[in-house]
């Protein structure tokens, strides 16, 4: 393989470069260079953003949760509507709307809202997440789907009911797990 001096120089340099790499790795401290710890920072930053989001949701939606827990469901919905104008597209608005509508027995609207929430934020069905609301979503699907199916059988041309059923299937599929 090493036929002449040029080959030998190349091979020796290769060994030298590899040894230098091993030496650098072995002797490098934990925080060297301008990008040191960039990955750590990214993971940490992600966790901080997540925790900040959790406390933000608790703070902003706390009054709604209090109203819901005290049984003032209509007031809670009104408060949510108000919040929805401040925070358009926020999945938590849909999640709490779904929760409240479910308590009010409005299964169709609850399923639509819950599907919207899960589409925007998969954490609501993630057992390992602090935002996990699996039991709520499971009960909405278990109670709501048979009713929606029955009504659709009676009114097969009802397109909005068909959309609710599709949202229900979506939730069933997400609850069943699998790759996202």
């Amino acid at each position, binding site marked *: 393989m090493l036929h002449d001096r040029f080959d030998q120089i190349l091979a020796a340099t290769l060994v030298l470069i590899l040894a230098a790499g091993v030496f650098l790795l072995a002797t490098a401290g934990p925080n060297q260079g301008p990008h040191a710890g*960039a990955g750590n920072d*990214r*993971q940490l930053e992600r*966790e901080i953003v997540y925790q900040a989001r959790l406390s933000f949701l608790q703070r902003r939606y706390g009054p709604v949760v209090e109203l819901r827990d005290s049984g003032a469901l209509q007031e809670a919905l009104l408060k949510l509507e108000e919040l929805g104008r401040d925070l358009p597209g926020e999945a938590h608005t849909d999640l709490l709307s779904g929760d409240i509508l479910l308590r009010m027995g409005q299964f169709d609207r609850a399923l639509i809202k819950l599907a919207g929430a899960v589409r925007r934020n*998969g954490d609501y069905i993630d057992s390992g997440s602090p935002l996990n609301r699996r039991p709520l979503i499971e009960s909405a699907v278990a109670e709501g789907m048979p009713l929606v199916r029955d009504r659709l059988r009676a009114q097969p041309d009802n397109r909005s009911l068909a959309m609710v059923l599709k949202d229900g299937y979506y939730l*069933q*599929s997400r609850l*069943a797990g*699998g*790759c996202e």
Partner: protein
Amino acid sequence: MSVSLRDRHFWLVLLAGLGLGIFGVLLAVWGNPQNSGICVSCFIENSSGALGLHDNARMQYLRPELIGFVLGSVVCALGFREFRSRGGSAPMARLVSGLFLIVGSAVFIGCPIKLFLRLTAGDLSSLGGVAGLVAGVWIGLQGLARGVDLGRTREERGATGLLVPAGFVLLLIFLLARPAFILVSERGSAAQHAPLVVSLLVGLLLGALAQRSRFCVTGSVRDAILMGRRSPLFWGFLAFLIGALATGLLSGQFNFGLYGQPGAHLEHLWSFLGMLLVGWLSVLIGGCPFRQLVKAGEGDADAGMAVIGMFLGGGLVQSWGIAATASGVSLPGKMSVLLGLAFVLMVSLLFRERSA
């Protein structure tokens, strides 16, 4: 049955098919996402994310199975003196094909292995994909019969076939040493995984078996169309289906139905087209995503190009919203499948040897 029972290769194929079916279900029992015990495209999307090629925080995990497939194949090929550096057959076309293999799989939600794992788990929504894969393989065969050919692979100087295996050795080091730049999901489907050692060992075993037997799902479909029951791969494929079905039934993973299946959507046309793209491309480049990994481990630099394309695809399908979800297929997903079909049509036109 017209294959010889005394043929050692036949039993190897049977073993590889059976192993893929059984472990494909068991890995889900041990922690991988439901119906995704083995899914090369999902694993590639996860691994691309772990390397920072996309920013979906729910899809980042360096999947040990993937590393095992390649390194198992390397060890086996070296041990049986089958490792040969080869390449030089339309490398760019193969790279882009690898990318579109992941696009088609992501729109269906699963590679050809997962397609049949979903089917044997009772998921009827996978039927569109099955039809698409068979149609794609059939169209690909029609092309081959009419002279579509990416060109001959040649022995290559300089051991270029070692580059992709060396890349996977580096990934193994990353997996074990866990440097800070390798991202790991704490939520979502990438956070669901079997124990690292188990995943790695299963990957190594299946990679080695696939290398020895040349077993591949798309190749089995191809051979079944061409040779029917005379092909050992047909029987390997049957063993794969029986293994997956039996393990699914015994482990309680079987859930028969069309609706509410894990990691599935109801847009059957796009499931069909996504898998048609995968089947067609697989025939053109000589194997499905799993087979590309195994061939790359044998020193095939052309398959290595497809593997690199697959990693790029893994990043793109997540970054550009191409990957389908349970709620359906996005517009970028549909457009990408059409683009992929346009690509494979163009390749078929440009790489066709026409008789004078």
